Structure formats: C-alpha cells, structure tokens
C-alpha cells in the first residue's frame, strides 16, 4: 500500500496501532518463575531476532524460565533499557515497536550493546 502522504490514507486503512506485537502488552510485569498463557509466543519473538538459540526448536513452554530471563536481559542491554530481566513497562513499550526483520544477534554473537557488555563483564549469562 503506497500513499503519497499521510492524509491520503483511506479511513478504512487507518489503524489504531494495535496490530503487530501489541498482544505482548498483556505480559507486562511478568517475571521469572511465573507461568503466563501465551508467553511461548514471546520466546518465538526473541528467537526470531537471535536472543534465543535457533537450535532449541520452536516448541516453547509458557514458563518464564531462565531462558526467557536471559533473552529479556540481553534485549534490554541492546536497546539501552535497564537490564532487569523482567517484562517491565519500558521493555514492553519497546517490544511492540515495528522493526527490521533482520536479527540483532547472529550465530549467538551480538555486535550491539550486549556483545560489548559481555566482552567486559561476566554479569550477563551467555546463550
């Protein structure tokens, strides 16, 4: 769909911003140890962008486990968010923003912030 300018977008195509990953809003406040219905979808998201190793397959549980906590923490580092490992409001707000489909982490190595952080610290667990 191409439009010369924003006012030429027909009302029928005017979205409310609830498409894409807005469904992740319901995981706000989730943290390690919980089981939240649908959380496996978030693991699929993190796997798609390299935060969870592809070799683990795609059949994830809805458990907020160490795997997810590590992915969240690495994501937070990459996007300059406080690395809490929890799905706090700033993290959820960022997760739902449309983005490039290319992965942030390729073959397990991140050249974004998290990779640099790991090079200087042992505080972030490696995948």
């Amino acid at each position: 769909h191409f439009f010369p300018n924003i006012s030429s977008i027909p009302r029928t195509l005017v979205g409310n911003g609830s498409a894409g990953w807005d469904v992740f809003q319901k995981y706000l406040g989730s943290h390690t140890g919980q089981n939240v219905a649908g959380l496996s979808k978030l693991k699929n998201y993190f796997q798609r962008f390299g935060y969870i190793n592809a070799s683990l397959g795609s059949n994830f549980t809805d458990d907020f486990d160490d795997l997810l906590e590590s992915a969240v923490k690495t994501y937070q580092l990459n996007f300059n968010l406080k690395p809490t490992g929890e799905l706090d409001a700033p993290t959820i707000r960022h997760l739902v923003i449309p983005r490039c489909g290319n992965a942030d982490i390729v073959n397990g190595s991140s050249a974004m912030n998290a990779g640099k952080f790991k090079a200087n610290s042992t505080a972030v667990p490696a995948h």
Partner: protein
Amino acid sequence: YSFFPGRPRWPPGKTELSYAFLPENQLSDAVKGVFARAFERWSEVTPLTFTETAAFTDADIRVGFFRGDHGDGEPFDGALGTLAHAFSPPNGRLHMDGDENWVLDGDFLSSAGSVLSATDLESVAVHEIGHILGLGHSSLEGAIMYPTLPPVTRKVELADDDIQGVQDLYGSNPNPNGTLPMLTPSNQKDTSGSAI
C-alpha cells in the same frame, strides 16, 4: 555500529552497484524516486554509486515488495511487526513488507497522531540499504541502523555512527559533492600548521 559475522562487504574495486525493482510490483516513479534518494544518502559518504537498471535478475541489488511467506524463510507478518529485511553482501536481496501502509513524502506533522499504522518508506529503505552494504544493527537510537522505527516517524539522515560504520567497510567518498572533505592523514592540518 556493527557488521554481519565475518564482516562481508561488496568486493574491493566494485564501487558501481546496480539496483532493480521486482517487475511484478509495477512500482511508480514516485516510489522508485524514494529509493533513489535513499541510495544517494549512502553514496554521499562512500565511494559507492548506485544505478537503477531494468534487468532485475542481473542487478546487484534486487528490491521487492512481498506479502507473508515469500520463499526466503522469513515470512512477513502483515501490517506493522516486521517492516522489511535485507541480506548481507553480496547477496543483494532487499525485501519490503507489502502489507504496510507506506508513506512517500514523510511529512507526518499533519497526522495529529491519528494514523498509527503509517510507515515512512524512505526511512526503512535507508536502513535496509545499510544491511545490503554490510552493516548490522546499532544500539544507538539516533542511528539509521537502530532496529526499530515507530509508526508515523521519519528518520533518514545518516548518523555519525552509520557513516563511521560504512566508511570502515568502504572508505569515504573521494569526491564529495558540496560537502566538506573527509579527514584523511594528509589533510588533518589547517593552513597554519596546527592540528585540527
């Protein structure tokens, strides 16, 4: 800035890259013009030049708009979500999500926040061309290579981070048009002899 693993780039000496649009998309001149501007932004800071060709299969860079699963293992997901993706050099495939509401003029000042599903075409094109040239994602929010782009947002100017990254791969433009010359070891002193 970052690179793909192994730091792939277009071969040394290959500074003239051709690009073509998927014929089936039947893109208008206006859409093609947006891409031409996006390519120009990278050309201004590197020795690379980009020329459109009609020969899609022979082009170095092949731009196409696709919907859903389009056969490369990275299906698009409808409006919003993922907007586009591109492959590392010298693959040359640049894919845009055909389900997005692409806006050509990038003027969102009159939107009053009401059209939340509109995406600026040039902003995404500039980012994906960065991947085509070998750049990965950056953690600097002001960089073109930052992975996310909120709807109704325009970001088309290369940041210092983007320029340093692409010049790390290809060097600077030896003939910058109307811009200040890039610093090189031979011109890092002013006429008085003091270092800049």
